[in-house]
């Protein structure tokens, strides 16, 4: 089976876990990156993209009331793009391909959130309008609830899988062309960008824990780690 289809199906399963299930963390980029890496056979590249996306999206963990990027689509497209480009082109510039994959993931996350918003709003409206007859039998109402549950889960799966299939194809094409045509300073700039991205994760962690007694623990641990690694 084509890796594009396999990755899209994985995205559908992760959407069920994230939106209908108990949110097992499998949909988080760092874990999705590992899964994508195993599928594409490029664990190192996919996991690095997953890690960078996780660093960036740590910032949205405590935020409320904003339109969040679709992390599942972003993670699968980003990690998948890097893994598939590495796999099919055999390009040795790992850091540049990781940068291209990360950018593809970030853009895909934002695009997917906008594409899926009306589709999920439709499901939301439908579920909000469902009527249950008081004259129905107990078994009938239970069956209706189970059918709604199954239908809603299937809908989540299909929407995410289709969106990821489209965006993964586009992301792969764009990244493949980028690696073919650009070089020199652009590559250096992209690699520098990628190496600076963990700063966003550090800022997010400081933002999450910067209150009361917690900031002392955070600073103390950070300084200790830097000292130990520096002395070593």
């Amino acid at each position, binding site marked *: 089976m084509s890796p594009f289809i396999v990755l899209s199906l994985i995205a559908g399963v992760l959407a069920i876990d994230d939106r209908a299930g108990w949110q097992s963390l499998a949909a*988080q980029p760092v874990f999705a990156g590992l899964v994508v890496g195993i599928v594409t056979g490029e664990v190192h590249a996919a996991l690095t993209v997953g890690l960078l996306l*996780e660093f960036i999206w*740590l*910032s949205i963990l405590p935020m409320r009331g904003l339109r969040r990027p679709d992390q599942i689509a972003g993670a699968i497209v980003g990690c998948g793009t890097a893994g598939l480009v590495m796999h099919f082109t055999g390009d040795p510039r790992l850091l540049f391909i990781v940068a291209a994959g990360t950018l593809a993931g970030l853009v895909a996350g934002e695009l997917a959130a906008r594409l899926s918003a009306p589709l999920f709003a439709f499901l939301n409206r439908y579920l909000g309008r469902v009527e249950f007859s008081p004259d129905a039998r107990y078994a009938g109402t239970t069956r209706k609830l189970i059918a709604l549950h199954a239908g809603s*889960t299937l809908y989540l799966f299909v929407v995410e899988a289709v969106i990821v299939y489209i965006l993964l194809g586009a992301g792969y094409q764009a990244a493949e062309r980028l690696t073919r045509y650009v070089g020199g300073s652009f590559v250096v700039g992209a690699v520098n960008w990628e190496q600076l991205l963990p700063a966003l994760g550090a800022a*997010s962690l400081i933002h999450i824990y910067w209150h009361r007694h917690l900031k002392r623990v955070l600073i103390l641990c950070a300084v200790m*780690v830097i000292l130990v690694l520096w002395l070593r």
Partner: protein
Amino acid sequence: MTRRRLGKLDLFRVFLRVLFLQGLLNRRGMQNLGFASAVAAAGRVVDGDNALILRHLSFFNCNPNFTPLIIGGVLRLEEERSEGKPVSESDIDRFKKSLSSPLAAMGDMLFLGGLKPLALTFACIFAIYKLLIGLLAVFLIYNLTIISFRLWGVYFGYAKGWELVDVFSGPVFQRVLVVVQGLGAGTGGVLVGLVFHAFPQHGQWMLFFGSALTVLTLYLLKRDIPASWFAIILFPVSALFTLIFV
């Protein structure tokens, strides 16, 4: 006819529905359909009347990890009501409403603000060192915690019934929260240290740019501007900067 009481297997069926509670989330009733679906899994034993499900279709919202406690408690009260004890429908409704808001806040603080960032920080540290076994361990421990908490919630809620209201008013939750958040801050500090230690390895000027970027991102986050857009904009800026200055 005397009805049998809810058994462990009945509550386990409720737990299975509780795992997929969010699947029927909607803006109008929030978790109402998921709640009714979970109650329906054991409702036949308790009452067997369609009205039981319909009563639980009213608006309900709570943290999904704490909802099983309320579902367990509601099943206990419904059982007592069907046995003829002095529990009215409005009592059960009041029980749901009085618990949902405080437990939602507690759940968000413990799981979204405590355990999730903690697990993700550990995962990032293991991913930096490519320790796949560590990643797997974080995944398993996190899921074991969440699933066992939901399973415990159904049984504990059912065992306590009305007493559930008193259980969470003690200091135990605050202590657990302090420990989880302290651990999270410590692990977060370790990750921040690792990030800042790695910057000079790519060149001394990276430490300067990394620090400046951290401060700038913090400024944006304080204004609720997510880092994802900032990261996208930074890509052409970085390419252009390198093109001009390097």
